[in-house]
């Protein structure tokens, strides 16, 4: 277990520096005028130019710039946006509603995916299985830019079942529709992986043993088979989080939820480069940390890895 954690940590450190370096390099490297790139097409004033040069240490070497960028990231100093606000304050303001939305989406998606995945695996080839397979295919093919506006139009505006927008202090009910939209991004893959995994595990020898032990069918499936089947599903959570972050940008933009994604989307429109880079960098770090945690969870679920 110890060796596993150490190896993972080392890999994570490497990935961490690699990923942040890529984000940084993409933003600043080889720019004729990095400041104009940050500000996009809008004109920048001389004072902004000075502030940005100082902020990003543009008159120093590339690696030094990267060093200051990383230092800022790790100490929570994300600089100021082109509108003059502190980015860390904007982030502090924005993250609670996004976390609420994402957690709601994950809980909904995981509950439905695991339950439906197990049932279609047990009754594979049956009506329920075929309907879910087709449904997941359709959901899988629905880009979030289609799903979010259409869901808002149909359930929020036309039918009026859900509030079509949400505020910063939104209740869970206000966030339910956007969370469903966001959750649908990951539900199809999770369901399919659960199903395949349960189907494979149902054929495993240890299931026969569990039945020979006179255990109830419920216990065989929900204790013996499920624990094994969840291993590949858990590894998906890490990847899924990346999808959720991406999806949150579109979903929050559509539903006007003033979270992290909304801020990124608005920063793109207003061409506020520092804001985009600041928020994206923080999300990349969160993504990496969560993936590390998922790896550790994976080890907790599968003893064969723990004792490697």
């Amino acid at each position, binding site marked *: 277990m110890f060796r596993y954690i150490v190896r993972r940590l080392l890999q994570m450190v490497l990935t*961490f520096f*690699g990923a942040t370096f890529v984000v940084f390099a*993409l933003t600043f490297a080889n720019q004729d005028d990095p400041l104009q790139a940050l500000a996009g097409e809008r004109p920048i004033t001389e004072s902004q130019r000075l502030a940005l040069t100082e902020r990003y240490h543009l008159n120093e070497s590339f690696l030094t710039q990267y060093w200051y960028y990383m230092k800022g990231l790790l100490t929570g100093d994300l600089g100021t946006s082109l509108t003059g606000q502190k980015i860390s304050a904007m982030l502090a303001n924005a993250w609670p509603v996004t976390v609420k939305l994402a957690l709601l989406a994950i809980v909904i998606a995981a509950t439905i995916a695991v339950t439906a995945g197990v049932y279609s695996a047990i009754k594979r080839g049956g009506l329920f299985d075929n309907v879910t397979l087709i449904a997941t295919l359709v959901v*899988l*093919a629905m880009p979030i830019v289609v799903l979010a*506006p259409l869901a808002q139009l149909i359930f929020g505006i036309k039918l009026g079942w859900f509030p079509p927008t949400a505020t910063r202090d939104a209740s869970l009910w206000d966030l339910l529709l956007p969370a469903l939209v966001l959750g649908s991004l990951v539900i199809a893959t999770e369901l399919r992986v659960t199903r395949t995994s349960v189907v494979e595990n149902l054929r495993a020898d240890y299931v026969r043993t569990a039945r020979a032990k006179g255990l109830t069918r419920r216990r065989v499936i929900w204790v013996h088979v499920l624990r094994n089947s969840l291993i590949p599903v858990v590894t998906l959570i890490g990847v899924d*989080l990346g999808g959720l972050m991406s999806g949150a940008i579109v979903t929050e933009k559509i539903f006007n939820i003033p979270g992290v994604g909304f801020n990124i989307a608005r920063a793109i429109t207003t061409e506020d480069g520092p804001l*985009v880079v600041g928020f994206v960098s923080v999300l990349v770090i969160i993504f*990496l940390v969560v993936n590390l945690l998922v790896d550790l969870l994976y080890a907790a679920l599968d003893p064969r890895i723990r004792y490697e």
Partner: protein
Amino acid sequence: MSDPNAITAVEAPSLQPAGPRGRRGKSSDKPRSLAGDAWIDLRRNKIFWVSVVLVAVILLMAAWPTLFTSADPRACTLANQHGGATGTAYFGYDFQGCDVFAKTVYGARNSIIVGIMSTLLAGVIGLFFGLAAGYFGGWVDAVLSRGVDIMLGIPFLLGAIVLSNRLVTEKSDGVLAVTLTLGLLTWTSAARVMRSAVIASKNQDYVAAGRMLGATPYRLMARHILPNSIASFIVVLTILLGTNIASEATLSFLGVGLKNDAISWGISISEASPYARVATEPLVWPSIFLAATVLAFIMLGDAIRDAFDPKLR
């Protein structure tokens, strides 16, 4: 890499017995019969035909939009703002008074161009890196695998936003920028498929046996394993084509994709969604076309995979 030769070697009749396989006579053309079985399976699959028809229609629309509409998607008059269906403007008019049907039809072209080109780019990068990592192993594999780790350390859309923002120039329509962005960020799954296929083939018993009989493992791999892994490679790319089209729309929707007058379903959706209360058609139709296109490619990939790997069903 001299790979093209390796693949043609499969088609050419072999003059020498190919290791242990050659002895069993008929089974030496197994790769082909696998493809044959898959084709028989595919022919019976309704989903396959539905997706083929859909893909054909979309390709037709992308190549010759004038077959579907004679209207000019850029001829917009504000007087028509949110107007209902008239004449050939079957879907009415949008906020700027443009013909929604014409705009939707013309949107196929950019989707298909970006989708195909970015997928080809991802495929070439993935094929190259995957083969190199699998074939050379050792430090090449280690470096490439860490590279993939780093790529996967950045959530896709976030990376795409930054990269696309960086690549797009002021005056261009963004097609090249988005194509490069998607191609450079999505090759990892293709690389992984190739890498594991090559590694699996290196460990096959009959490859080892063949090596002992004097055949080069490279030739055995090329003859017996690559044709099979090509199938899963194609499946990955077909599905990637679908998701890349969706990603193009998403980037365009957010304003970091196609721009400056380019016609894209993503832009149409973005423009129409604030007015969804007033006019639904400018939002609904590009959405349906986009979803149908993505669905068609994903279904096609799914159907091919099922045909090649029946046990996954």
